């Protein structure tokens, strides 16, 4: 049985201009110790999917349908108190901006010790000792001294290491990293991701990596789910997805990666058009206005995810009607 299993999750947001269907009938599984990447452009629903696992959507967002089964329990049935005990303990989250995710007036030590103190019955000093260990673990030198430092004394990369230390504090079964490296330099990105990957492997924790960086996906993910307009359009193992993308959107994404052996002076491939307006989703397949293969049927039929090869899923009616 998989560690996390999401079935037909739908999330909508009440806005001033109408209801936005941010996530629409999304289903996926994550096995223990596995790294799943969720890729998609801004507004494709990947962050909202992640936030709904821990039910951190705020007042505007509601989970209108679906199940989130973690360790055999449907998280949506649990009372707030039980969810709170799972947050940070069995499922931890790493946020996008290390600059603002740390409290500027608290020392690093206090912030790393916080989840331990919250979830383990430990004294504050024991929690601080453990925080020191964690800071060592994420390769920050002089851990003892660093406990008393403030976030502004840390660089972006070090802050993200601190965030990782906080996420790992209670040895969670699942870590959700929401674009953990977007705000960092390219050279630092690789270090942070390798660190994250190594430490999760060590703990045998599953990792959901939310990103829009396909290079990151190729190196660190076991499986990939591609999201577009609030739905998963394709999902496969990372290697398979790169070699044989089967959805027109994924194909377009792969084609738009610049390569070193490309013709000098040749133009970069792009996907024509704009991402869909979430308030006015196109009927049928959300991708059809931009799809080079769009057929008449794509304007009416909503495609659902189907297994086209072993462990390779795709949601596309157009392809089905051609082949």
């Amino acid at each position, binding site marked *: 049985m998989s560690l996390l299993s999401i079935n037909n999750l739908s999330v909508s947001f009440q806005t001033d201009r109408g209801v936005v269907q941010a996530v629409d009938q999304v289903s996926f599984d994550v096995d223990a110790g596995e790294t799943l990447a969720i890729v998609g452009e801004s507004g494709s629903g990947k962050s909202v999917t992640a936030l709904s696992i*821990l039910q*951190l959507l705020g007042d505007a967002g509601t989970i209108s349908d679906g199940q989130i089964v973690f360790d055999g329990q449907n998280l949506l049935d649990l009372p707030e108190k039980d969810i*709170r*005990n*799972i*947050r*940070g*303990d069995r499922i*931890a*989250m790493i*946020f996008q*901006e290390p600059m*603002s*995710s*740390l*409290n*500027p*007036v*608290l020392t690093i030590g206090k912030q790393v010790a*916080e*989840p331990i103190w*919250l*979830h383990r019955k430990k004294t504050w000093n024991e929690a601080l000792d453990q925080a020191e260990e964690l800071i060592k673990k994420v390769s920050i030198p002089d851990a003892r001294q660093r406990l008393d430092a403030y976030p*502004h004394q840390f660089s972006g990369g070090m802050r993200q290491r601190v*965030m990782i230390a*906080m996420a790992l504090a209670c040895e969670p079964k699942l870590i959700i990293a929401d674009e953990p490296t977007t705000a960092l330099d390219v050279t630092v990105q690789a270090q942070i991701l390798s660190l994250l990957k190594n430490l999760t492997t060590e703990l045998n924790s599953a990792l959901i990596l939310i990103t829009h960086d396909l290079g990151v996906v190729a190196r660190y993910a076991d499986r990939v789910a591609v999201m577009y307009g609030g739905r998963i359009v394709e999902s496969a193992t990372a290697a398979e997805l790169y070699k044989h993308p089967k959805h027109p959107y994924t194909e377009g994404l792969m084609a738009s990666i610049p390569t070193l052996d490309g013709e000098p002076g040749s133009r970069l491939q792009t996907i024509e058009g704009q991402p869909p307006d979430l308030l006015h989703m196109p009927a049928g397949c959300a991708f059809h206005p931009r799809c080079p293969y769009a057929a008449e049927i794509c304007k009416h039929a909503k495609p659902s995810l189907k297994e086209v090869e072993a462990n390779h899923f795709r949601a596309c009616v157009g392809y089905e009607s051609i082949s």
Partner: protein
Amino acid sequence: MSEMSAPYQQKSRFMAFHQRMAKSKPLGAFGGAVFALFLICGVFADLLAPYGLNETNMLERLQSPSFLHILGTDHLGRDVFSRILFGAQLSVIVGFMAAGLATVISIVLGVVTGYFGGRTDMLIQRFVDAWMTFPDLVLLIVVISIVGPGVTQIVVILGCLYGIAGSRIIRGSVIGIRENMYTHAAQSMGARTIHILWFHILPNVMPIVIVLFTTRVGAVILAEAGLSFLGLGVPPPAPTWGSMLSGTGRTYMYLGPWLALAPGICLTMVVYAINVYGDALRDLLDPRMRGS
């Protein structure tokens, strides 16, 4: 070792902060020094005063300042300097207790309305609006006339008065802090709301709280003097600066101008000092000014 050095570090940080203030805000540092002197006078009044609080000496009535009585004596032959010191003591007590109460009320109301927003915010802040429409002094006079004068009454009333009005300032900054990523991160870590308020929000409003408290001490001392002047303050023979000013000070103004000058100058100096010190604190502790 670390336990040993912790208070030392605390103290040195406090000192370092004030050294920085002395450099960048000399006037504020001067205010701080006067404030500190006032505190010392208040706390150690019993040791510093050369004469007793109500030690009368009819032979030495209305004497002008001399070596024996630095600030002269009043119409009952009491040493004015000693009474000023004991007046400082009373001002410190009233000032700190009322400002402390005001700060607690401001924090509770401000943090709760600022963090939760919505209906809670609506209800409580409309009450605050209504409360703030009453002029301070009118409210004070009405309430004191009903419950009668006394230290406790004054502390409670001034505390409520300034506390409720001050909640606005705390609320405003909490609204800004609430939207920061780290409060969401704390939530994702499984923290209860009360933990987020205490652990994450409160330390962030502390600079504002410190400034608010300091300026409130000055305001309370002035308000208490005003009440005493009107005869609604701490009842005699307690030596408040306000009653010294209005009672003996006014009656014997021509015979003994020192009787009015001494408490008047002390009051002006202390309130002025606290205000410039509070201004300097605000400038130095404001997060937007940090690092500059």
